[in-house]
């Protein structure tokens, strides 16, 4: 138990690195994912096809393979990225964007066509229809799945441990080697830091979901 207190500074460093990865790639993948979703609901067929292809590839590729690409494969083709956080953020963003896209798209599709038709029927223009009728409703359904995507992202940052980023899981691994008698305590401490993020976020997502269901 003392060893856990002794290693708290290291765990805290790992935690902030995990948080950094999650926040930066979270913001980036929200942007990229929304753009992809715009592709997928666009009236232009070629954009829809390219969006669907990117998402299909992104969702069916293991995250570890995405990491392998940016850390081990890309440098041999002449594009050298700095080791550490940069490829980790890129890999996490590429992977998570596909899931953000699907969450946003299903949110848009969850709004009934009749809603937009009614808005047009009472004389609202395109901008008003979107900003007053469609987006407020889509946003409500889209937030819980988006939070779940971000929770998954937070857990997925652990994959960076295998690729030269000292975040929480990597810290746990090295602490487990430093204190072989307290392995359970060390990994338990790491688990605690993850749960501190994931469980409250999951509870919030669930609460919003229940309220949205109720309001429909």
């Amino acid at each position, binding site marked *: 138990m003392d060893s856990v207190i002794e290693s708290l500074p290291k765990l805290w460093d790992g935690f902030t690195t995990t948080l950094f990865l999650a926040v930066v790639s979270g913001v980036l993948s929200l942007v990229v994912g929304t753009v992809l979703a715009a592709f997928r609901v666009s009236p232009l067929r070629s954009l829809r096809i390219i969006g669907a292809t990117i998402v299909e590839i992104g969702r069916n*590729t293991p995250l*570890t393979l995405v990491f392998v690409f940016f850390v081990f494969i890309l440098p041999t083709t002449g594009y050298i990225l700095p080791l550490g956080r940069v490829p980790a953020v890129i890999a996490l963003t590429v992977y998570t964007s596909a899931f953000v896209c699907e969450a946003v798209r299903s949110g848009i*599709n969850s709004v009934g066509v009749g809603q937009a038709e009614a808005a047009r029927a009472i004389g609202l223009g395109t901008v008003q229809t979107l900003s007053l009728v469609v987006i407020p409703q889509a946003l409500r359904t889209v937030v819980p799945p988006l939070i779940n995507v971000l929770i998954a992202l937070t857990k997925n940052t652990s994959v960076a441990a295998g690729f030269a980023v000292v975040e929480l*899981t990597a810290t746990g691994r090295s602490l487990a080697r430093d204190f072989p008698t307290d392995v359970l305590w060390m990994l338990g401490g790491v688990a605690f830091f993850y749960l501190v993020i994931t469980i409250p976020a999951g509870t919030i997502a669930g609460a919003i979901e229940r309220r949205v269901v109720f309001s429909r």
Partner: protein
Amino acid sequence: MSGNVLYDAPGPRTLRIERIASIAVGVLIVGFLAWVVVGMIDRGLFNERWAIFTDPPRGQSAEDVWYSLLVRGLGATLRAAAVAAPIALALAFVLAILRTSGLKLVRGPAVAIIELLRGMPVLLMMFFGLLAFGLTSFEAVVFGLALYNAAIVAEILRAGLAALPKGQVEAGTAIGLTRWQTLRIIQLPQVVRLMLPSLISQFVVLLKDSSLGFIVGYPELLRTMQLNYSFFGDQYRLPLFVAVLAVYLIVNVTLSRLAVYIDRRLSERGQHAKQATVLLPAGLDVVETKGP
């Protein structure tokens, strides 16, 4: 696109503009891809390195390369998934049943276990297995995959149980079945069928997560790829990566398509299912003939 919530149904003029814009964007995309390919040619990425799949160097045959990737690599990946999935499913049934129990004393711990397992990264669980419980790398991979997915599948099953009409349980109680019998004979068979698409999607996730074995030292597909390029040389990294990516895409897209197909068939049958719930006694006949 008809019936879109974002746009009005397009008229002939808009359709024409959309078609032209679509082709223009298509040309741009093809141009971009061509630019990437030309860049790759300039960097010499389409040289003899691709011969690794037909005529590899260092006295190896093409069969050796494919054997190591598809039989040993993919085989190990599938073996981990195939061992972990049934364990996860069995644990998930137990967790889901405890989670929906009428007793708070049973429900509480089940909720805690599910939340705990769901909130942790799979990789961390594998490290628990590897470093804390002294498992081999294969066992650690299975340990992590089974526990994590048990929690997720338990939640899928719970959602399925909640989605079933209440009359199903009431009918079971009315004919004198215990809670366990109601679950086993009436609820779970329907839930598994209803949730089959979600269960298959989760299996794809499990299959993808088995690649974490790369990090904990289990020689699965990615590790086999790495062994291959450290043997043949760095210039073979790209072709080997493309092959592994293709293998994953083929396996996972096939499974995902299967999930979508089953989902569609189930929703096509949706109406029939609703009628069938009214005609419950007919279903019970079937169950009774199966009984001891």
